[in-house]
């Protein structure tokens, strides 16, 4: 029987594995979604993983927790991640003596209950928690966000008792956003889960139009329930216009995944320094993580170490609350992304909100190009060839030196359309109307 929230505050169950203090890219969207629902008058319960998961395995940004709306109730349910466990006391005899066999068996065990390596075993815990929360205080809507896709499980469970749900895909499950290939066949376990979930969803959200279009084609019956809920920027930067520094700083902030063309950036940077005297005394400041986990990936660390004499500096991660101060010290922002027409990145919106010159170092066919087109201080590299990257860096250098208050203000004005709440509020209003009638 469908649940009606008429006459009382509607109750949202928001399911996200990565929630503060998680420091992963998707966490800002998760935090903003929960906060915006709370701000819009919903009672919000967040179902997520324990803090220790992020403190021990992925790296954490403790400062993010302070940004959670105090009206939100957080339910943290146990999540174990054996393959990333580092406490050797917890290792089994089999793991120690036959690590390869252990890994293979672990992988098989992971997908027994849900077809998703590493996260699959979370399914029964999530399902039980969703039922318990619904029993304690009836839920009117579930918004579940991937990845991991196991977060969709509570939506399926509560749909059985009439609760509508929204799938916030962010990226994709069956589509590899970098290669554009379908990674799970329609008749695979993932394909069958996805098909069922999409069929019954009230709405399905994606971060950009190319990803939505791919899914509309793959699941045409649900095409009219698929929406783009773009990422956006959350907090307006507090700094104002300033002229370029005598020793300009080009900055990159974010997770340097193996897909990020870091080596190409460094090559282009070296070339630009050789060919352009204005850049020869500039600095390249990289902040964030080298890889997805707390421990830097050795091959990325090697690239950074090899360029220290070329003005590159790697400063590690930055708490979200300090990001604005960091941007205030930079003169040019570098948007360095993996290739793929389906790739946007959340960082592009934060960059836009600064009003500073932005250099794009990514495939021009990348979905981020659509976001940046029209920004007054945008300098895209024509390709990932070092010469093209160097040319874009030089053009941005020139623009940074000529940057004035009017151009700075025009950049910030352009960014207004990408304020986070502007992406979410129309959908929240629609959902509110839907469950009240």
């Amino acid at each position: 029987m469908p649940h009606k929230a008429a006459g009382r505050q509607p109750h949202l169950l928001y399911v996200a594995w990565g929630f503060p203090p998680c420091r992963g890219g998707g966490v800002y969207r998760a935090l903003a979604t929960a906060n915006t629902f709370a701000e819009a008058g919903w009672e919000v319960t967040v179902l997520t993983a324990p803090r220790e998961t992020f403190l021990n395995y992925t790296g954490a940004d403790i400062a993010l927790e302070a940004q959670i709306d105090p009206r939100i109730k957080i339910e943290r349910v146990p999540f174990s991640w054996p393959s990333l466990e580092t406490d050797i006391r917890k290792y089994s005899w089999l793991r120690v003596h036959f690590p390869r066999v252990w890994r293979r068996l672990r992988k098989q065990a992971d997908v027994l209950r849900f077809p998703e390596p590493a996260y699959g075993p979370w399914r029964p815990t999530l399902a039980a928690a969703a039922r318990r929360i619904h029993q304690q205080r009836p839920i009117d809507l579930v918004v579940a966000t991937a990845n991991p896709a196991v977060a969709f499980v509570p939506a399926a469970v509560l749909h059985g008792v009439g609760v509508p749900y929204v799938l916030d895909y962010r990226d994709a499950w069956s589509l590899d956003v970098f290669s554009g290939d379908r990674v799970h066949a329609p008749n695979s376990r993932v394909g069958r889960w996805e098909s069922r979930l999409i069929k019954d969803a009230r709405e399905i959200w994606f971060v950009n139009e190319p990803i939505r279009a791919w899914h509309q084609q793959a699941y045409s019956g649900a095409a009219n329930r698929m929406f783009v809920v773009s990422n956006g920027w959350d907090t307006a930067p507090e700094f104002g216009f300033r002229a370029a520094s005598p020793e300009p700083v080009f900055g990159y902030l974010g997770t340097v995944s193996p897909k990020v063309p870091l080596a190409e950036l460094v090559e282009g940077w070296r070339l630009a320094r050789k060919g352009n005297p204005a850049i020869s005394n500039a600095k390249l400041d990289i902040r964030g993580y080298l890889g997805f986990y707390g421990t830097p990936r050795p091959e990325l660390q090697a690239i950074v170490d090899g360029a220290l004499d070329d003005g590159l500096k790697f400063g590690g991660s930055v708490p979200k609350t300090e990001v604005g101060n960091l941007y205030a010290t930079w003169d040019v922002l570098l948007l360095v992304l993996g290739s793929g027409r389906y790739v946007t990145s959340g960082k592009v919106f934060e960059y836009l909100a600064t009003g500073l010159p932005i250099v794009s170092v990514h495939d021009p066919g990348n979905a981020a190009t659509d976001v940046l087109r029209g920004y007054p201080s945008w300098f895209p590299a024509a390709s990932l060839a070092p010469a093209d990257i160097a040319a874009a860096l030089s053009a941005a250098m020139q623009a940074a030196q000529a940057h004035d208050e009017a151009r700075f203000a025009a950049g910030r004005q352009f960014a207004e359309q990408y304020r986070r709440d502007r992406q979410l509020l129309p959908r929240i209003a629609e959902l509110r109307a839907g469950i009240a009638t």
Partner: protein
Amino acid sequence: MTPDNVVAIAGGPVSHEQLLTLKEGLAPGSVLSLIGFEDLLPTAAGEVGDFYVFALGSLTRSVRFGMLGILALRIWPGSPARQLWRRIRHHQSALAAAEAADLIVALDARSVLAAWHLSQRNSAPAIVQGIAPALRKLAG
């Protein structure tokens, strides 16, 4: 309590950078010891600067037997991981240092077996795999 007697074990090559990273996490006055194969260590045995090195002789290289040999090597006492544990067991001062440690760090996959055996002998120390979790332990 912050560990102040740390033993790092390595079954493969160790770099100076790894040791320095670990050392930077130590509280003042703490002791860092390294146990590993002589030919794969970055320094000679003995007291080296701020840390102590226990060398267990050279790793005996073995011939691989193809795919079938992977399983055999795991069981065979000559596998690097087993050699490492056997050498530690028979090196009295290295064993004593490991048993007296507050924190044992397995620096690589080969050293996990030895660290695990040490965890069976002594319940006191924390035993972790990798430098990052070791630094978290050291940070308290």
